[in-house]
């Protein structure tokens, strides 16, 4: 583990030093269908950090964040979410999860507003009527991703990038302090990438914790405070974000950028967004 990211001035603003890490895993092992996917992960992510999990396809990126959320059980080691094991965690309103898949909805149409409003569920207990506060949060989330005008349209009418923004707005609507995004940029057009980066910037400004899995960072790269590179189920690199490496693409810097970063050849650096 490299504590360099905390030293780089991203210490949490509001939380006292005793606050438990937003995410923690020690000696985390995960096997899927008997195949080891994570083999001994030690990771602590503190409140206010903006962390990108990078790595090639099959390196265990998605499995890592799913295990941190308790969606995939650990076969060894421990995980904690704000200091509590995911199975016993209760403050789910604190977590905004943006899943990977673009296919929102199922057999029945749902409007953009309905999907975004469903992000309030963790704050809106059973039988509680929708309040003005709920409506304001939904309106604000729609505005943040630039989809206010599409609020009444079925999600299915939107492009892939716009649907991704709907998923992000759904997470925003719950007003969580911790965001987990699985490949928010995958298959997203340039306009939506910029919207995404803008949304992320405003989250960073308000000191939110962000953990995202990415294949390419694009315009989000300057916002990342720390990167964790996975390969073969282990952490290969934990520290400076690849944006630095991307700005100096000289051979001399190669050792700071393990070659396993991205075998499938997706653009990793800010160059993609320029």
């Amino acid at each position: 583990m490299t504590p360099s990211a905390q030293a780089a001035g991203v210490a949490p603003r509001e939380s006292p030093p005793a606050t438990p890490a937003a995410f923690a895993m020690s000696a985390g092992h995960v096997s899927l269908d008997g195949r080891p996917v994570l083999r001994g992960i030690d990771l602590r992510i503190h409140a206010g950090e903006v962390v990108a999990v990078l790595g090639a396809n099959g390196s265990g990126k998605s499995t890592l964040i799913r295990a941190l959320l308790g969606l995939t059980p650990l076969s060894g080691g421990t995980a904690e979410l704000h200091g509590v094991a995911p199975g016993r965690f209760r403050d789910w309103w604190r977590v905004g999860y943006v899943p990977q898949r673009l296919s929102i909805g199922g057999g029945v149409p749902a409007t953009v507003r309905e999907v975004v409003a469903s992000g309030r569920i963790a704050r809106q207990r059973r039988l509680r009527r929708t309040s003005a506060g709920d409506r304001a949060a939904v309106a604000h989330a729609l505005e943040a991703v630039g989809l206010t005008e599409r609020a009444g349209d079925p999600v299915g009418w939107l492009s892939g990038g716009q649907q991704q923004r709907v998923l992000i707005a759904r997470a925003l609507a719950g007003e969580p302090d911790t965001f987990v995004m699985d490949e928010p940029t995958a298959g997203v057009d340039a306009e939506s990438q910029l919207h995404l980066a803008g949304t992320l910037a405003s989250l960073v400004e308000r000191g939110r914790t962000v953990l995202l899995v990415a294949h390419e960072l694009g315009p989000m790269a300057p916002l990342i405070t720390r990167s964790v590179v996975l390969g073969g189920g282990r952490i290969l690199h934990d520290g400076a974000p690849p944006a630095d490496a991307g700005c100096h693409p000289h051979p001399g810097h190669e050792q700071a950028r393990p070659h396993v970063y991205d075998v499938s050849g997706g653009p990793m650096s800010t160059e993609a967004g320029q």
Partner: protein
Amino acid sequence: MIEMLRYDFMWRALIAALLVGLAAPAVGTFIVQRRLALLGDGIGHVALTGVALGFLTGTAPVLTAVAVAVLGAVAIELVRARGRTTGDVALALMFYGGIAGGVLLIGLAPGGSNSTLTSYLFGSISSVSAQDVWVIAVLAAFVLGVVAIFGRELFVLCQDEEVAKVNGLPVRFLSLLIAITAALTVVIAMRVVGLLLVSALMVVPVATSQQVTRGFSTTMLLAMALGVASTIGGLTSAFYASVAPGAAIVLLALAGFVLALGVGRFVRRGRAQETGP
């Protein structure tokens, strides 16, 4: 309309039809959303075993059908939750097992034969007793209550189970709740349209509704309106034309779907021009 209201059995039938028309599409919207449109059919087949069990043991068939249908629905849900790939196979096993079990058990029942089952397979709304109406009313109230109280959570669950989990929702409880609610709906609808056509009332009004709607809640409300229109309309036309009520109800619902296909295409084209390409 006036003439049929002179008969008590028609009043009971109309009340049953109204309740089924409301409840089946309400649950159906969540089931279609979850892409489990055939769940109702699976439960319906299993419920036949329950009906036969009622005759065999001398218990009211509606009650044994409730018990067996709930067990079947829970079993389907557990198999679905374990591994998705075997879900359709599990459903298929339910189909065969349910029918075979029903036919076998009814043969063992004193004085029972396959014709005893016919009224359950194809419905016999005109023979609905006052007690049946009460059972249907209680079950329908439960089903509509579940939709009203848990609707918001069920919407999140049916959108994405993992997102539901990360929102702290009781995913397993809600999944079982929707399966059990579906099972109860099947039993309610059993007397009205018959077990073989039960699922039509859960699926067809929803399929019709979504041709012309944009949102989830409007789809559900319109589906419920269409459900009531088909059950009441089908029952009425069956009374005057002397045809089987269950079949009339389902065919009316299907006719609505065909109509909505055309209307939906027209509406969508209009909107495409309005919003621009």
